[in-house]
């Protein structure tokens, strides 16, 4: 069982969400991936206004419409528009089919503006994904490092959080969130450098490591290889490839009456 935590509609051939979703599923089929988590629309902006993130979420809803048996959606919001973000979470998760919240680079993860979003998502049992990168070339103004999500995790110790990209610079990223047992790492979206998954399992335990691809910007192959090529027991690989994500999603899937 392989569940991919991290997929996008951007960078996929096709002019509509439906065409792009069909293309993603075709690649997933070739690679033996059973389920895809999809978030953000066909065109991105670093600081989306409410009408923009609503449009992007509409595109994801459209993409999901024929693929609920294969894909899940996360709602994309901007903490700098708190009221509108909460409304959007209600529209897409409480009243819609989405099961997670995606936070990108609009605001750093440590800021207080995230708190109502985290609390509402947790009430709904939605899983929370925060992009992080640790770049020697400099960050975008609102871009988070794993230290920012560590600060967020400290304020919300009972809320499961996902540290996107393991911070890219994974040797730093894993250290930054190691002490926070409510934070899991996403293996997606950085080069398939040897040793990443072994270090993550050694330092965090396999239960806190999640496979994701960041397709279509990344290939499914390069990211799957981080798990399939790792020197780890098969039981650990199974957790990382899908069982952990399924466990994290089970509460909201049950709440929505979704049978697996």
């Amino acid at each position, binding site marked *: 069982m392989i569940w991919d935590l991290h997929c996008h509609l951007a960078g996929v051939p096709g002019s509509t969400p439906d065409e792009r979703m069909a293309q993603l599923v075709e690649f997933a089929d070739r690679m033996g991936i059973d389920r895809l988590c999809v978030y953000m629309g066909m065109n991105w902006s670093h600081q989306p206004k409410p009408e923009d993130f609503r449009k992007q979420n509409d595109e994801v809803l459209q993409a999901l419409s024929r693929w609920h048996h294969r894909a899940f959606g996360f709602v994309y919001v901007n903490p700098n528009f708190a009221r509108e973000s909460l409304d959007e979470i209600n529209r897409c998760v409480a009243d819609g089919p989405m099961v997670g919240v995606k936070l990108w680079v609009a605001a750093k993860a440590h800021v207080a503006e995230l708190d109502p979003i985290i609390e509402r998502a947790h009430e709904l049992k939605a899983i929370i994904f925060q992009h992080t990168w640790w770049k020697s070339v400099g960050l975008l103004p609102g871009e988070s490092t794993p230290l920012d999500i560590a600060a967020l995790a400290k304020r919300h110790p009972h809320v499961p959080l996902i540290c996107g990209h393991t911070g890219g*610079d994974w040797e730093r990223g894993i250290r930054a969130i190691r002490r926070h047992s409510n934070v899991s790492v996403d293996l997606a979206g950085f*080069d398939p450098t040897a040793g990443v998954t072994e270090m993550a399992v050694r330092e965090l335990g396999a239960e806190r490591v999640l496979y994701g691809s960041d397709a279509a910007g990344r*290939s499914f*192959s390069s990211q*799957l290889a981080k798990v399939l090529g790792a020197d780890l027991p098969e039981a650990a690989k199974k957790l990382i490839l899908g069982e952990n994500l399924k466990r994290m999603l089970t509460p909201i899937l049950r709440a929505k009456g979704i049978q697996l």
Partner: protein
Amino acid sequence: MAHGVTQAWAGSFDGLLHKDLSSVNSRLAEDCRRFGKTLLLPFGSINPMLPDWEEDLRRCHEQFKMRGIRLHPNYHGYKLSEPFFEKLLRAASERNLLVQIVVSMEDRRTQPALFAVEPVDVLPLGKIVSVIPGLKLQLLNALLLVRGQPLLSTLAAGNVAVEIATLEGAGGVAALLKTVPSEKLLFGSYAPFFIFESAILKLKESALSKAQLEAITSANARRLLSDK
């Protein structure tokens, strides 16, 4: 042979920073012989910024019996527009050595701040390659950084190929083959820095014909090495 690999062209990470390259290349040749038998083919490092690099080249060819050399212009500190670079390519071509140019060793974003190395600018290659008869050239770790027209014009300039280790994007190989002829594409893994499975799985992710697979996994490499 793991994953069906029957030949692997190997360089040495020591070639990035060591100045006694003859020692580096000697160890590489010996390690390939001792541990790789017929599997590993050594590609010696040449640094044209070092005095008398010509002797390193001669030893690679005549003493260590290498079929090709590996260049790191960004780590060694020169541009491809430098006159001595063309001289090096000519000298390699006269010996029928395949020349590998490594565009990048690591994502620029994750490099240590005190040791930041920009990727190689390959734009000057097109003009140089076209005036050196018989030159055989391969770009390594190029496809995340060199795309579109700069890639196409470089590949079209002569007997130039590129490998897939850093190729990204869903269905990346098939997408690339829409613009790049299959005879220009080689299988490359960048192991052991990259996880080997990354490259091999890319051949599964894209729907490729038997002929395309054969070209990418062996036929192109065999031809490139044996061309005269």
